[in-house]
């Protein structure tokens, strides 16, 4: 933690993430309006005192919708990455620990999955499911675990050759015990880095899907939805494109800064 504070970029990333998390958590209290409240008397009003980020084509307050959109982004990011990290750790551990045919099978599966452009795979799967926020999280999670698997396996391969693992094996510790108490805690660094970076890409994928109309369905607000609404009025209602665009940019930047900062730290440690 101290090292993060010393690294100004990582610190900036951490602050951005915390700030957005606070805004998202307290969205209901901070929103001046109901994000779905339609007011056709004030369609596409430019930012002013009543609506600090203006209103959209149905007269809904963009600021309130942005705050609720932050919830969606955060939720999708965390749950999707949670799923992918879990799968990645389990498969990576098995492959790295047992080696042999299991390892070959798992790593070839990773190669196959990596050879398919993941955004298009997600698009294809989502097109067949009912688009809902839960489906999106699950699909993103199920299609982005390959990096973690590789990382965990690589860590395990090098750790397994160390003396302390030999010692643990000699005193008759079970496989599960070795994995959970010796190997995993020692490979936590890279896993955390890839998790943080993974959140950034999950946020981007969700925005992309919503932008294409395959993500969160109307009238629920999401940054991608607001952005796609804004596309049509870009010459006129700049606020509909600027604010969600900036929000996505800053959030992704925040996670990337923190992730890179953490990576620098762990690299120094080893």
């Amino acid at each position: 933690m101290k090292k993060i504070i010393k690294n100004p970029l990582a610190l900036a990333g951490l602050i951005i993430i915390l700030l957005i998390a606070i805004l998202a958590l307290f969205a209901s209290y901070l929103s001046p309006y109901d994000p779905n409240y339609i007011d056709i008397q004030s369609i596409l009003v430019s930012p002013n005192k009543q609506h600090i980020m203006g209103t959209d084509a149905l007269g809904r307050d963009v600021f309130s919708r942005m705050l609720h959109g932050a919830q969606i982004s955060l939720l999708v990011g965390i749950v999707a990455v949670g799923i992918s990290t879990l799968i990645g750790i389990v498969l990576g551990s098995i492959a790295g620990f047992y080696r042999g045919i299991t390892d070959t099978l798992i790593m070839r599966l990773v190669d196959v999955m990596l050879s398919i452009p993941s955004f298009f795979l997600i698009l294809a799967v989502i097109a067949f499911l009912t688009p809902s926020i839960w489906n999106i999280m699950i699909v993103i999670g199920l299609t982005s675990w390959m990096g973690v698997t590789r990382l965990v396996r690589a860590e395990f391969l090098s750790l397994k050759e160390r003396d302390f693992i030999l010692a643990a094996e000699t005193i008759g510790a079970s496989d599960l015990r070795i994995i959970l108490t010796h190997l995993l805690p020692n490979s936590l660094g890279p896993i955390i880095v890839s998790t943080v970076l993974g959140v950034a890409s999950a946020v981007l994928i969700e925005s992309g899907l919503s932008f294409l109309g395959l993500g969160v369905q109307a009238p629920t607000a999401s940054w991608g939805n607001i952005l796609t609404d804004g596309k049509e009025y870009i010459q006129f209602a700049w606020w509909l494109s600027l604010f969600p665009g900036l929000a996505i940019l800053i959030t992704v930047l925040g996670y990337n800064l923190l992730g890179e900062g953490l990576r620098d730290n762990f690299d120094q440690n080893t």
Partner: protein
Amino acid sequence: MRLILTSLFFICLFGCNKSQTEDVINFDEEASQESGGTLTNAMIGEPNNLIAMIAGDGASSAIAGQIFNSLLKYDENLEFEGDLAKSWEVSEDYKTIKFNLKTQKKWSDDQPITCKDVLFTWKAVTHPDTRTPYGSDYQLVSSAECINDYQFIAKYNEPYAPALETWASLHILPEHLLKDEDINNTFFSLNPVGSNYFALDSWVTGQQLKLKANPNAIHGKPLIENKVSRIIPDLSSQFMELIAGNIDLMSINPIQYSRVFPNRSELNNKINLYKEMGNGYTYFGFNLNKKPFDDINIRKAISYAIDRQEIIDGVLLGLGEEITSPYKPGTYWENKNIKKLSFNPQKAKELLEKSGYHLNNNIYEKDGIPLSFEILTNQNKQREMTAVLIQRRLQDIGIDVSIRVIEWASFVNRFIKTGEFQAVVLGWSLSLDPDQYSIWHSSQQGPGQFNFIGYSNKTVDDLLEKGRRELNKEKRKAIYDEFSSILYEDQPIVYLYAGYGLSAIHKKIKGVKKLSPPAGIYHNDYEWFVPTKFRRNEMSL
């Protein structure tokens, strides 16, 4: 020194730029008619085949319509007039139509246009091997023949009222170029030879099509020499090209019409806006084969709960009208005697309760099943916004509604053709003939057919069949008035709005009628012209 240079640079950046804008030109100046010049427009999609009967998509028909003629066409008041035909006679028993063709007319390759071409086209469109969706209308013709080079006769087994309309929409093709070709798959479809105002000059795939005035045009050469249709798949980019002066006309949306233009005087100096009744309507449709929509009280309740004026104000910014019959407002076939259902949430609730529903946690339910359904629509911003407004109103009275927006191809294939939907927000076009057989007749419910909401009403079936056999205009009107009244009474769909067609046309294009005729603003585009003094920038194309 550097400061001076920098400031000079900035002065030039803004100052010099200004002198280049077209503000200095007064496009409002009147000019006398002259030929020549180029008109540039934009298309969302690229035509795939310029033989319209094979292509079936909007972009193809738009281009093909400028190259080919039919036997008949609509004049500016939407009455029939001769196109390739000079005159036509319908027999006493309505079963025979005789067309007298114009003589001495030529294809753009200088070959004469004769009755053989018409007969060839009829044979092609009715041939079982021709892959066309329009064949059925022409298969009703029991026999067709040429009496001589300029007389064509079509015979029907029984009177078919929309017959003349079908002859106004069939492009006549040149027999001498196509008789030995497979019409489904011929180079002619990319390199057509026609008889109308324009002929294809060049086609750069993915970029643009260029049409050139046809010197042999059967109604005489148009004033515009070149027509360039650029392919720009995104409407926002099209609009930017319009503002930049790179395209001369496009249809615009209500926001652009009533928000963008009024706030930017420099646009009003060079672009004129036109508003006319549009050609389609948007509706909220129920799947009548699914519960609870088989219950007329539920349909009526939903209709009472939807505020149509709010949708017109919110989605179209007031640029549209409510309709009560599936006909264009202001035309002969519109049924003006239907009393509108007005927005009345109280009445909606009463109807729901009459059907056995009662409120539980602010949602109506019956036998423990809550009144809840999903509205499907395709990726169309106006329809999506409409669905959101409907959802809000239905939520208010206690109906739980979710919305799902789907890309067009999977919308049609996975939901409409299989009947796997509960409610939809969609549109129909308002056709010029009142025949609505394919949409409302109970026999038209197969996969891929248009009565996908499953509407069956014996009386309506009879009326639709009768209307097709009746050629007397007043009697026909009475039949379709009764049809549209029953349809409104049944509420298988809730009519939402018919939006105005909004066009933006550059002021350098002269000859556009200020008051657009019933047939639309583009009806006299062969009389449009660009005065020489405004023909700048054309080389850049």
